[in-house]
C-alpha cells in the first residue's frame, strides 16, 4: 500500500507483522451520506491507538470495517497481515472485540459465557479450562464464576466482556467505549488491565468519549470528524501543537463584559462555551493578576489537555 509509511522493517519478512493495521483510503457511504470519507492510518504492534471523534464522526463504522463486519466501499485494508474483508475470518481468529453494547449471554453464568464464546473459536478441553481460570483472575471475577449475568454490576460485566474478548489470546484488541457508564473505581480497574495487556505486547485500538482516558492510555490517537481525519499523533504532541500551555476557565457575573474589556488582551486565544470563557495563554501571570482584582469571577487554572484539543478541532469555535 502506497499511502502508509512503514516503520523500519526488521530481520525478516515475518516481522512485517509490526504493522498491525494498514488502512488506505478507507471509505464507506450509507446512501448519500459519507460515514467514512477516505481515511489513511496505521497501527503498530504493542501500541494503544485511540480513535476519537464526536458521535457520528465515523468511529464505529471504522471499527466495523477493521473487524470485517462492514465491507468498505473503497480503499485498502490489512489487519494482522490479512486483507480485509476477504480474509476477515482468519484475521478474527487473532482478534478480540469489546463491543460498545454488552452482548453477554443473559441465560448463562460467567463461566458458561466464556466457554460458549470460546466454542466460536473452536477452543475447548483442559487448555481452555486453564485459560478461563487465568481470565477470571485477570478480570477479578473468580468469586463470580458461577454467577448469572443478571447479578453482575456494570463494571463486572465490562470486565467479563474484556475477559471474553481475550479468550483466544488475541494479538489485537478492539475496544469500543470500554468504560462508558462505569464508576471511577471500575474504570481504574479496566485501565490497569488494559495497561497490563499493553505490557504483554498486545495491540489495542480504543474509542472513547473520555479525553482523560485517551490521554492516559493511548500512545497515539487519531481524531476524526465527518468521516475525515483531523489529526494524528501522541496526546502530548497534539496538545503541544494545538493548545497553549495554560488554560484558565472563567465564569461568574459580568464575565462577558470583563473579557471583552480587559481579558481578551491578556490571552492568546479565548473561547466562549455557554456561561464560561476559556482562556488560552503561554504566560499565565498577567491574566491571573487581572483575575485577582475581580473576586466575583470564579476561575480554574489548569494545564492544557486533550479535551481542549478535541474541542478546538471538533467543537464550535465562538471567538475572534
Amino acid at each position, binding site marked *: 500500500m502506497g499511502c502508509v509509511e512503514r516503520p523500519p522493517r526488521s530481520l525478516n519478512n515475518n516481522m512485517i507483522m509490526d504493522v498491525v493495521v494498514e488502512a488506505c483510503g478507507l471509505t464507506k457511504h*450509507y446512501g448519500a451520506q459519507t460515514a467514512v470519507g477516505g481515511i489513511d492510518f496505521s497501527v503498530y504492534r504493542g501500541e494503544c491507538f485511540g480513535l476519537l471523534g464526536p458521535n457520528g464522526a465515523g468511529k464505529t463504522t471504522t471499527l466495523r470495517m477493521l*473487524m470485517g*463486519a*462492514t*465491507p468498505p466501499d473503497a480503499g485498502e485494508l490489512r489487519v494482522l497481515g490479512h486483507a480485509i474483508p476477504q480474509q476477515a*475470518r*482468519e484475521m*478474527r*481468529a487473532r*482478534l478480540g*472485540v469489546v*463491543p460498545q*453494547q454488552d*452482548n453477554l*449471554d*443473559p*441465560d*448463562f453464568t460467567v463461566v*458458561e459465557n466464556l466457554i*460458549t*464464546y470460546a*466454542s*466460536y*473459536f*473452536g477452543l475447548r478441553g483442559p487448555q481452555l479450562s486453564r485459560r478461563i481460570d487465568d481470565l477470571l483472575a485477570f478480570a477479578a471475577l473468580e468469586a463470580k464464576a458461577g454467577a448469572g449475568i443478571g447479578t453482575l454490576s456494570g463494571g463486572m460485566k465490562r470486565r467479563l466482556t474484556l475477559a471474553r474478548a481475550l479468550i*483466544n489470546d488475541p494479538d489485537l484488541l478492539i475496544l469500543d467505549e470500554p468504560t462508558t457508564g462505569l464508576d471511577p473505581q471500575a474504570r481504574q480497574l479496566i485501565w490497569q488491565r488494559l495497561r497490563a495487556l499493553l505490557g504483554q505486547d498486545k495491540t489495542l485500538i480504543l474509542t472513547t468519549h473520555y479525553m482523560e482516558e485517551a490521554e492516559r492510555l493511548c500512545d497515539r490517537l487519531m481524531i476524526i470528524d465527518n468521516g475525515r481525519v483531523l489529526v494524528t499523533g501522541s496526546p502530548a504532541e497534539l496538545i503541544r501543537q494545538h493548545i497553549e500551555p495554560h488554560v484558565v476557565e472563567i465564569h461568574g457575573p459580568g464575565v462577558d463584559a470583563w473579557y471583552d474589556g480587559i481579558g481578551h488582551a491578556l490571552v492568546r486565544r479565548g473561547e466562549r462555551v455557554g456561561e464560561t470563557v476559556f482562556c488560552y495563554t503561554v504566560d499565565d501571570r498577567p491574566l491571573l493578576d487581572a483575575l485577582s482584582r475581580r473576586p466575583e469571577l470564579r476561575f480554574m487554572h489548569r494545564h492544557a489537555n486533550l479535551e481542549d484539543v478535541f474541542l478546538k478541532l471538533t467543537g464550535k469555535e465562538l471567538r475572534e
Partner: protein
Amino acid sequence: MTSRWLPVWRRNLRVWRKLSAPALIGNFGEPLLYLLALGYGLGGFVGEVKGLPYVVFLASGIVCASAMNTATFEGLYSAYTRMAVQNTWGGMLAAPLAIEDIILGEIVWTATKSLISAAPILIVAALLGAVHDWQALWVLPVVFVTGLCFGAMALVVTALAKSYDFFIYYFTLVITPLFLVSGVFFPLEGVPRAVQIGAQLLPLSHAVEIVRPLMTGQPLHDVLSHLLVPLLYASAAFWLATVLLRRRLMS
C-alpha cells in the same frame, strides 16, 4: 460447508437445557390438548376419516403442525431476540464465524426444536393407541426436515422484522392458513380444487402425506418428491435469509 455452525447450535441447546422444564410442558401440553379435545371430542361426531378413527387421523397431522409451529416460533421470536435484543449474533460475527454459519446453526436448531416438540406427541399418540407400529419412528427424520423448512422460512421473516409485532403478519398470512389447509384436521379431498393445488405447492401438506401413512401403517407413496418440497423451501429460504441478514447485519 463445514461444521462451524455446530457451536451456534450447541449454544442454543445449552440455553434450552437450562430452561427445558417449562419449554417441555409447553411442547407436550398444547398438542396433547388438541389431540384429546379434538381427537375424542370432535372425533365423536366425525367418526371415521379415510377409514381411520378421527384421533388416529388427527395425531399425524398434529405431529406435523407441531413441527411447523415450533420451528416457526424459534425462528421468529427466539432468533429475533438473539439477533436484535441480546445481540448474540453480533458477538458471533466478531469471532471467526460467518453469517452462513450462524444461519445454518439456527436452522438446524429450529429443526431440533421440532424434534423435541414432535417426539413427545408421538409418544402420547402411541399411548393413546393412535400409532400403528414401530415404523412410526421414521416420522422423526420427516419432522426434522419440516423443521429445517419452517425454521429457514421464519429466519427470512426475522431478517426483515423491525419488531416482534411484524410476526403477526406472517402467522396470519402464512402459518395459520397452512395449518388449516394442509390436511392436518381434515383430508384435502373435500376442499375446492384451487385450495388443493395451493396446498400442493406449500410444504406442510407434503410432510403430512408422509407422516400420516408412517403413523397409521398405510402404504407410502412418492416419499422422495414429498420430501423434496420442504427441502427446496429450506434451501431457498436459507439462501434468502443469508442475503437479507448479510444486508441487515453486515452493511
